[in-house]
């Protein structure tokens, strides 16, 4: 499978009579974008804002962040299963805009935990999205629409906006072309390089809002998914997207998946990248063990891997799925590197490990997603909410978006931590 990502660097964005990129400047017609978003009858209205680094703006109720991308061949589907027809993602050419993101908010959400991004101050310094030119969209719900159904509409509006913006750069010169060309069946079985697979936990149902799972895989949810083999390009090119809420995961980070890109970088040189096992965390022990055995067997007996990286999504329980699968891999002779995300700021690193398996001897401290930080920065202008929007804190304290200081967990700050491995962060004892 061969995917070419053609990147165009966007240096500035502005409102204009037509939506078009010229010489690195993306002009956007908000009226046209609004009409596109309002085509979905589940959406009553939408607030659209263009923001740049350094502006005193706090964006609230964020549920996703998306990199503007589209397929260049009109026959190809964008985000298949979500907005385009079903087709296998990951082949052909994709246009991608850099330096710009779509920030998707659900201002009427009843969820307690939602994302926050500032365009200035400490959050902007820590998040790559705080250094980009962003298009914020914040749809409101139409009468009679179910809350969860509307969440899907909001997410799809974000994906559609990303495609719309990328299409506006047609004919614009390309700044860089990255080629992701991996023909897994043709990898030489006699190659001396180790064969490495990636165990990719895409979702956990433990936080399911109103007992419904978020769709994140070709238009569907993965709650009952048994481990399945994916080509890594499917992940990079829109087959997998973010959840209906930011939890150190969003579509942008998946489109630029850190582990997949790193395995690609070293493919053919230090290792052979033999594929991705897509999995979902399990809330029941029986399904957890079933999935662990299936994943380990796919890694060993189907992909023929010598080594596997097991990466997790935010949460405590997903550690257990990872550990049970990792143990089975080691039993089959596949060497593992397993992620952990310490859940508390107290104790030693060893105190925070939730599994008990001596064979899992290579543990990566893949950031403490629930770490808290105090943001001493007062916002003047708000998108996706107001100064009175409540900001979640696990302690029973009441705080609002307009407060001079907010106390927030880092997994709610999109881009600061990232479950796909892009963050340059380690957990250390202090």
């Amino acid at each position, binding site marked *: 499978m061969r995917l070419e990502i053609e990147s165009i660097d966007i240096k500035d964005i502005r409102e204009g009579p037509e939506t078009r990129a010229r010489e690195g400047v993306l002009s956007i017609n908000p009226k046209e974008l609004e009409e596109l978003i309002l085509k979905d009858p589940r959406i009553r209205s939408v607030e659209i804002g263009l923001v740049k680094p350094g502006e005193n703006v706090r964006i609230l109720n964020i549920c996703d962040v998306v990199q503007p991308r589209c397929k260049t061949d009109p026959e190809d589907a964008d985000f298949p299963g979500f907005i385009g027809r079903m087709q296998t993602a990951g082949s052909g050419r994709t246009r991608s805009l850099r330096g710009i993101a779509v920030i998707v908010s659900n201002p009427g959400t009843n969820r307690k935990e939602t994302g926050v991004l500032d365009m200035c101050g400490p959050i902007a310094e820590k998040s790559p999205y705080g250094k980009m030119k962003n298009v914020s969209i914040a749809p409101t719900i139409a009468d009679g629409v179910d809350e969860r159904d509307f969440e899907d509409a909001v997410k799809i509006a974000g994906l559609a906006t990303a495609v719309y913006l990328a299409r506006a750069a047609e004919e614009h010169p390309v700044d860089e072309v990255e080629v992701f060309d991996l023909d897994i069946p043709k990898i030489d079985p006699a190659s001396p390089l180790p064969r490495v697979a990636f165990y990719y936990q895409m979702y956990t149902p433990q936080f399911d809002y109103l007992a419904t799972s978020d769709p994140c895989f070709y238009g569907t949810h993965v709650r009952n998914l048994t481990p399945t083999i994916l080509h890594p390009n499917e992940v990079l090119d829109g087959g997998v997207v973010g959840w209906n809420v930011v939890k150190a995961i969003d579509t942008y980070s998946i489109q630029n998946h*850190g582990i997949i890109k790193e395995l690609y970088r070293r493919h053919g040189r230090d290792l052979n990248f033999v594929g991705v096992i897509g999995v979902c965390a399990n809330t029941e022990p029986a399904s957890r063990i079933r999935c662990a055995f299936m994943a380990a067997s796919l890694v060993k007996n189907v992909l023929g891997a010598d080594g596997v990286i097991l990466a997790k999504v935010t949460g405590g329980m997903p550690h257990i799925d990872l550990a049970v699968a990792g143990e089975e891999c080691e039993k089959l002779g596949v060497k593992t590197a397993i992620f952990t995300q310490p859940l508390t700021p107290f104790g030693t690193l060893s105190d925070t490990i939730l*599994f*008990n398996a001596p064979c899992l001897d290579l543990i990566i*401290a893949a950031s403490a997603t629930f770490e808290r930080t105090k943001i001493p920065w007062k916002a003047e202008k708000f998108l996706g909410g107001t100064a009175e929007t409540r900001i979640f804190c696990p302690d029973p304290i009441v705080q609002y978006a307009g407060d001079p200081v907010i106390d927030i967990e880092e997994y709610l700050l999109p881009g600061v931590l990232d479950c796909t491995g892009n963050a340059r962060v380690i957990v250390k*004892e*202090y």
Partner: protein
Amino acid sequence: MGEKKLRVVNYLNQFFGQIGGEDKAVLGFMVKDGPVGPGLALQKALGDRAEIVATVICGDDYFAENADGNAKEGARLVAAYQPDIFFAGPSFAGGRYGVACGAMCKEVGAELGIPVITAMNEENPGVDLYRKYAFICKAPNIARGIPELAGTMVRLAFRLLSDEREEDLVAWENLPKPSEYNYFSRNLLRNELCGKSIAERAVEKLLAKLQGKPFESEVTPPVFEKIPPPLPLRDLSTCEIALISDGGLVPKGNPTGLATRSNLKWGAYDIEELFQAWEVAHAGYFNDHVLNRPDRLVPYDALRELVEEGKVGKLHGTFFSTSGNCTVTKRCGEIGEEIGAEILRRGTIAGAILTST
């Protein structure tokens, strides 16, 4: 106008306080003006910015007899001098002395909220007892290199008094790096910026493991203790049973203030009142079922039926509740011991049912 000179108090034992050897270890507290013994090295390192105004001295045996009470008395003596910085020791590998330094730091830190700094060798039992409460610089196991050690302690003290934030911390706090300031980590975990991404480190380390080369795990896996189950109750029809849960079920308004994540508290609530008006303080599972019907977390309905049928003797009137979500295992153990002690203290409870999420 120059900056106001910072005030410093130092704690020493009878030996370093130049009172005498082991024969004087039974002596109680005394205070000398200005620096004494190793305090002279500390004063030299402090330079003109700060002045050791007093040295509080106590015999090691005397202190060890009642460490907590003596720390309170010592802290009162320290507080009288209104210091900006408190140093204890250094105590090297001295066990009783190390515990005294640690206890003094803990009390002074809690009472005055100023930087409390001591120095010990890793073999000193004071390190593990007090690392949470004090900045303990790394010292050799015998009393040598005092000038360098004094320099380390003073550098750390000035750093803590500055408003400098640690730029490598994602949370951007004023928390110096243990490796840079040569102190024992204080049982805190922090996200730190790193030259390599999580993905780069994972692939690099896995390749080393695959090639049979040495590789360094970023976490040393723990070894868990095995706990044998207690003997079963013989006849439930004569037993009083208590209900416990870590699912975060609390009376409406969450009066004890349990946190929804990383909670450290537990509460004891009248079960009948709680089942009139309740909420859930737990962000680690999907709460709706429990909000609709708390009996599905805490089997109050089933147990009442069993009592009516005579199969269970009595239901204890208090429900013990905590929120077990991302709480470090050590604190979970303590909460268990605290609830267990309370249940034993009540004297009538024969067994407990603990439901979890």
